[in-house]
């Protein structure tokens, strides 16, 4: 048995939820649980996906939104138990897997062409 299979065995214990497929350039809304003291509530984070990193239970994705003229980025582990739902709002057309150039763009330039469905 190879090494990776043994690590895989440990990783298999992590539950990976099914989410719709999305990639860099897409606009998505992530609904996630927030725990304040004993109370739990849901919060939404909508923005453009900058990148998807990793594989298996350690995979993450980065979302960027502009909140009151300030760019906010959040990295979510895809297997995080706090993520409730991921909804794809727009499918963007980008040529790169990681669109870091998007951080520098402001105003009218910070638009991504939408894919016609």
């Amino acid at each position, binding site marked *: 048995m190879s*090494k990776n299979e043994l*690590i895989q*065995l*440990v*990783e298999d214990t992590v539950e990976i939820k099914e989410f719709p497929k999305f990639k860099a350039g897409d606009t998505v809304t992530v609904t996630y649980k927030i725990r304040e003291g004993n109370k739990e509530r849901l919060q939404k984070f909508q923005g453009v996906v900058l990148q998807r990193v990793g594989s298996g239970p*350690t995979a993450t994705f980065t979302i960027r939104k502009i909140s009151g003229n300030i760019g906010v980025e959040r990295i979510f*582990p895809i297997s*995080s*138990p706090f993520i409730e739902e991921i909804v794809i709002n727009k499918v963007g057309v980008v040529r790169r897997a990681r669109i870091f150039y998007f951080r520098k763009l402001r105003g009218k330039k910070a638009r991504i062409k939408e894919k016609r469905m």
Partner: protein
Amino acid sequence: MSGLLGKKLGMTSIYDENGKNIPCTVIEAGPCIVSSVRTKEKDGYSAIQLAFEDKKEKHFKKSEVGHFAKASTNPKKYLAEFTRFEEKKEFGDILTVEVFREGEYVDVVGTSKGKGFQGVVKRYNFKGVNDATHGQHNRLRAPGSIGASSYPSRVFKGMRMAGRMGGNRVKLINLQVVKIIPEKNIIVVKGAVPGPNNSLVKIERWS
């Protein structure tokens, strides 16, 4: 004390019941066989010698075959002695990951990754020269002064300078055991473990 020899396989992360992400290291530990027992009367100290991992027959040496014959087994790749073992062990006893329990704390000993010849900034976390200006040139990562002048007229022993870094024996204490899979001889500990993947590690529990 209780212990095992193992092989570091690599790192991954899992989640605990609160949804917290735990970075952890997967170690293939044991089964280890007791290849020798040191006793106070015979050897002057008491310890048990554990052997880990099979090797090919063409690599057997005659002296090894004789040594392992006492434990009625074939020669193994790695040997290590464990002192102050809790339970009494006999020649040929087999230890598996079941000597550990989920949730308890263990110490892990390994050989850290060799970094080669390194300067003082990387090796001892010196600050270097932070200025590029004020007459500085070519000495951004220099160590600075290594001592006074006519007194003591020498450099003190142990002065931290550039040199070989890494490849040392490192012991990390109090790593929590996150998970144990006895069928596959796997133990998962919280956090990192010294050394590259596939390197030998020694897991100890002091109770």
